[in-house]
């Protein structure tokens, strides 16, 4: 599980395998972030057209399921959260990241975990969160708990001892409860939900590394090279140019603008968080 080409090639030569067979690429996805309308069909069609293989596209709702599928070699190409990527690696999945998807014009891949307070609040920094009722999303959420915990620790506030944690279950609920300033006085949520509610304002934010598109190390070397070329730096315009039906649509643009290449090191922030917060998710 490294980006070292030589090593992967060696692996590939010794035991090449596919999830189903050599004519099929299995693409497994767990929708990351809150907007889960993952309409990736044009991307799949593009992949199919360019590689000449049938692409089986499967969306799962559960990271664990996809990780186990990856470990068992039942996916060829996949996309799941940064955290999941690390967990999968830790549990023995042999995968390599290719790129991450950009959805907002002009921004990098990834999204933001934001610290929010009611719009009329005079709290301006994280250290003032101490002693408050703090809305998180749920203990397994990357942008709704892990990053916030990390940030609070950095600000000298213990996310367990120094605040009253409230788990809202979902990002939009966290935002709403903060805006009502009753059950939660301050909180955390993902940027896309925060912008929808004028009742809160952002006092701090951290970029969460975007979800990687990964490929199985067991694929043959030339296919891996091809996939890296195809998916490493592709834009929606490239796909439209390739003549893929449905690519030139609002719904596709909403979820896919381009990819930017990422490597394993891109996720070091998360590794760091794991060390700092001792999150259960990082253990294997």
């Amino acid at each position, binding site marked *: 599980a490294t980006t070292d080409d030589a090593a992967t090639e060696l692996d590939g030569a010794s035991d090449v395998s596919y999830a189903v067979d050599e004519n099929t690429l299995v693409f497994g996805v767990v929708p990351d972030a809150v907007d889960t309308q*993952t309409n990736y069909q044009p991307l799949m069609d593009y992949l199919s057209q360019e590689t000449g293989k049938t692409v089986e596209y499967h969306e799962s709702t559960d990271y664990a399921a996809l990780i186990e*599928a990856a470990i068992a070699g039942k996916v060829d190409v996949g996309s799941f959260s940064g955290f999941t990527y690390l967990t999968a690696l830790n549990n023995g999945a042999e995968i390599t990241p290719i790129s991450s998807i950009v959805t907002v014009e002009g921004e990098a891949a990834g999204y933001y975990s934001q610290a929010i307070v009611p719009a009329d609040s005079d709290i301006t920094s994280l250290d003032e969160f101490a002693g408050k009722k703090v809305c998180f999303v749920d203990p397994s959420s990357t942008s709704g708990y892990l990053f916030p915990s990390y940030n609070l620790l950095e600000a000298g506030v213990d996310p367990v001892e120094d605040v009253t944690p409230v788990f809202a279950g979902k990002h939009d609920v966290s935002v709403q409860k903060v805006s009502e300033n009753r059950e939660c006085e301050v909180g955390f949520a993902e940027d896309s939900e925060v912008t929808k509610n004028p009742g809160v304002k952002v006092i701090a934010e951290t970029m969460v590394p975007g979800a990687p598109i990964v490929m199985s190390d067991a694929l043959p070397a030339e296919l891996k090279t091809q996939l890296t070329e195809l998916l490493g730096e592709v834009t929606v315009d490239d796909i439209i140019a390739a003549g893929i039906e449905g690519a030139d649509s609002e719904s596709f643009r909403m979820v896919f603008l381009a990819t930017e290449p990422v490597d394993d090191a891109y996720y070091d922030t998360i590794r760091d968080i794991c060390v700092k917060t001792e999150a259960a998710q990082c253990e294997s």
Partner: protein
Amino acid sequence: MTLTAARPRAAARSGRPSGGAGDRGTLEARAPRRRLSPEKIAAGLTLVALVVASVVSLVSIDISIPQMIESWGNAQNFFERVGVISFPEPGDLLYLTALTVGLVLCGTLFAAFFSVPIAFLAAANTTPGRGWMVAGRFAGVFFRAVPDVVLAMVFVLMFSLGSLPGILAIGIHSIGMISKMFADAIEQIDEGPRLAIRAAGGTTLQEFTSGILPQVLPSWVATVLHRNDINLRGSVILGYVGVVGLGLEMSYAFKSLDYSLGLGIALIIFALCVVMEIVSSVVRTAMLGFAPTRRSLGDRLLRRLGMRGRRVDPADTSAASAALARKMSRADARTAALRRPWDAARRRNTVWGWAAGLVIIGSVLISDIQWGDFVTFWGYLPETAAKFWPPSFGSYDAPTMIAAMGETIAIALAATILTIIASIVIGSLAARNVAPSPRVRSGMRLVLVSIRGIPEIILAIVLIVVTGLGTQAGTIALAIGGIGLLGKLLADSLEEVKPGPEQALTAAGASRLQVYAGATAPQGMKALIGHSFYMLDTNIRAATILGLVGGGGVGYFLLNAGQGSRYDLVTTIVVMILVTVLVVEALAMWMRRVFR
């Protein structure tokens, strides 16, 4: 004697119609022709069509057994990684368990309470009119078409974080199943006793409480406890209302791949479900009037508690009652009889009654319900409701969604047919009146509750690693999970059939299997049909497990839309599911009426 002995022939031969001799030709000629009503034929053909459709879907899913065997090593690798099962801290565990059970029980009881009137309207034999019946059935279908997860997501916006939105979500969704099962049970009663109460001038309500309720109560108890079992296993939804319960803890454990802890919690939930299964069994045994078999689990439990009646010396009682009769006048005897004797049955009922009462009170207390929310939530209602209207397809288009719906139906059909076959075997053997021995019955009941006890995610993972992601895993997962549901429903229904006809066949020297085919199955046919359609209904709505294995289908979109707070899309998908399930329900009603 000789005279009377001679009489027979005269009488016997002058038998009813054209008294002729009993030779074959004339007998056949005189026998009426059997006529099948066109409706029965139509219903039969529909059933056949459904079976054919299911088989076609099953074949097209292309389940490859050799490939599964080949990949079995993956499952072994997985289990090796699970390691030793571990549990949360005992203190935490106790609190989590009490809280979860309390909350879930409140939700289930809430549902049971409101299901009674709905079932009353929805049952063909109690409904005040066809319109009411359709409305009642519609209500049931509607409540189960909206997943509890979505309800929880919505309620949390209107209520404070905490138990209340959770209870309401569990409760309202559960009405869908409970009211249907209640209504089906009402339709299965013996009409005689109820007719007797009608003939005595009883009101509709009195007919219900005195004639119907005593007959359906065993079935209702089973339904409520079964639903509670389902809700307990689904308690992960409490996470959406900010309550950390057993289900959520388990889910966290699995999310962080801590399978050992996850399975530990699953084991706790399983133990709770076993306890409920035992309670259900004991209560039903008492209510159905089965002679207690000494070896049954519940009976042993009772005896441990010292509640099996003391053996009465017959000489003793007859002497006593004779003395009583001699000493007492009629009037005194009657007055004395006003006091119900504290026999074994009464003691048992009292103990169970108090125990149930205490558990319910405890549940309400531990749930710590914020009653004040009932006043404030109205303010949020219009705003929340507005989120659901107008419906939209979101970033998808209609053909995508309709295709997903079709895919869902195909998977559901394929899974249902597999489940039915397995459930008929296991469910029948789990019925007291079919099982060759109490041990077999207990064993099969354990199998059923164990199947229900397998956490969905574990089932999903095992299937994914041996079959890969997709519909194949989805179908098998649904089929296996369904056995836990259908098998239990079937077992309970078979136990409720009238024992007399079975005994008559036994007395004719029929084998166990012959009694089953000749008396048990015909009496249980209506239930089997009803439950099988309910299984299809459940599979159409099954979103979680299909979502886990990447099996697609419309349910997955529904969950995602809820997760992403796209409530307008939720509305669209719920309506699609609603329409489909309504069709299934209508078919079920028709079949149950025709094959009664």
